[in-house]
């Protein structure tokens, strides 16, 4: 067991565990995008940031990849953390406003504006799908390809992978494919109401398989 301080509380937690696991165990909620209990931590989304170290000498680390350490002082909801988290969510809204998960997180953290150039990416490179494929399915059909701004999810040589068993796990676990509810103002990055206008994915991605059930978009079109 490792003794540390979290939000002023003296806690003891299993060695080798992450700060995120410890926080969740003690009922402290930390938002995440790229973390899944069944997969190895990856540290891509940075949403799980927490402040570690004595006040004044602290720094922000991703709690999903930071191990519990004896005597560590952790603050999960300090002003600095919340500010950083909000900024991250704003960036995510600018990148991928079509994701319901991101919209929900943003409204939960009171992010009501987006000051960045609006993009409409379909992927936030959280790596959940590639980890799911590799770790849960032992498929290794998809992975990260390229580097920097060209980084994307793909298969080897852009060919349909022979290792893919069409399990559909990648689209199931994806936080970006879930269609958001688009408010009255479609153009805005911030979701306003619960009018579901644009159908999500199958219309545009023939080979994808949708496991969303219930799916509001399908219901709206009377397909289910």
């Amino acid at each position, binding site marked *: 067991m490792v003794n540390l301080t979290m939000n002023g509380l003296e806690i003891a937690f299993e*060695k*080798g565990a*992450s700060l995120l696991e410890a926080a969740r165990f003690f009922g402290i909620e930390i938002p995440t995008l790229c973390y899944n209990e069944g997969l*190895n*931590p*990856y*540290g891509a989304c940075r949403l799980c940031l927490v402040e570690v170290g004595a006040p004044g000498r602290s720094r922000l680390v991703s709690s999903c*990849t*930071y*191990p*519990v*350490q004896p005597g560590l002082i952790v603050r999960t909801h300090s002003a600095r953390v919340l500010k950083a988290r909000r900024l991250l969510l704003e960036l995510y809204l600018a990148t991928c406003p079509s994701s319901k998960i991101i919209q929900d997180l943003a409204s939960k953290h009171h992010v009501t504006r987006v000051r960045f150039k609006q993009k409409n990416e379909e992927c936030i490179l959280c790596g959940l799908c590639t980890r799911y494929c*590799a*770790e849960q399915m032992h498929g*290794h*059909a*998809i*992975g*990260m*390809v*390229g*580097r920097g701004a060209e980084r994307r999810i793909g*298969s*080897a*040589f852009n060919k349909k*992978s022979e*290792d893919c068993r069409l399990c559909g796990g990648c689209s199931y676990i994806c936080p970006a494919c879930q269609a958001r509810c688009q408010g009255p103002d479609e153009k805005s990055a911030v979701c306003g109401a619960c009018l579901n206008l644009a159908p999500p994915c199958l219309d545009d991605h023939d080979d994808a398989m949708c496991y969303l059930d219930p799916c509001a978009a399908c219901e709206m079109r009377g397909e289910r």
Partner: protein
Amino acid sequence: MQEGMIERSHPFRQNGISLISQLQQIQQEHGWLPEPELRRLSAATGEPLIEIYRVATFYKSFSLAPRGRHRVTACCGTACHVRGSAGVTREISKLLGVKPGGTSADGRYSLETVNCLGACALAPLVVVDGEYHGNITPAGTRKLLKKITGPEAGNGAAAER
């Protein structure tokens, strides 16, 4: 980091097959990374093909397309940029008739740009067929490329390893 966490974050790094040096070997042999070779590597080592592809697409020095017999690499890193690599690259591109990142139609030259070769004191840097040349000016590029463009370079056979 504490034991445990590293293994959990990098599950596929445990039985490393020194992938990069294997890729370097393939590239040395063929001049680029042909798909069948990578498939063979994957089958032989058990490393998933996508992992090999991921590493091959990550590094600029690996090429997944055939390259010219003569390879010219111009550095566009910060130090080289400040010392005028843009003009040098433009000049080389004009002289060889190849766009940065491309290979000439006859398969003779290819021109690549990289972001720092680690010899910034010699900026701007140009590598011609593996040979490093520092302090290059746009005016000096013609002389530099003589070796591979001149008649004595023949069909490029001389420069081939």
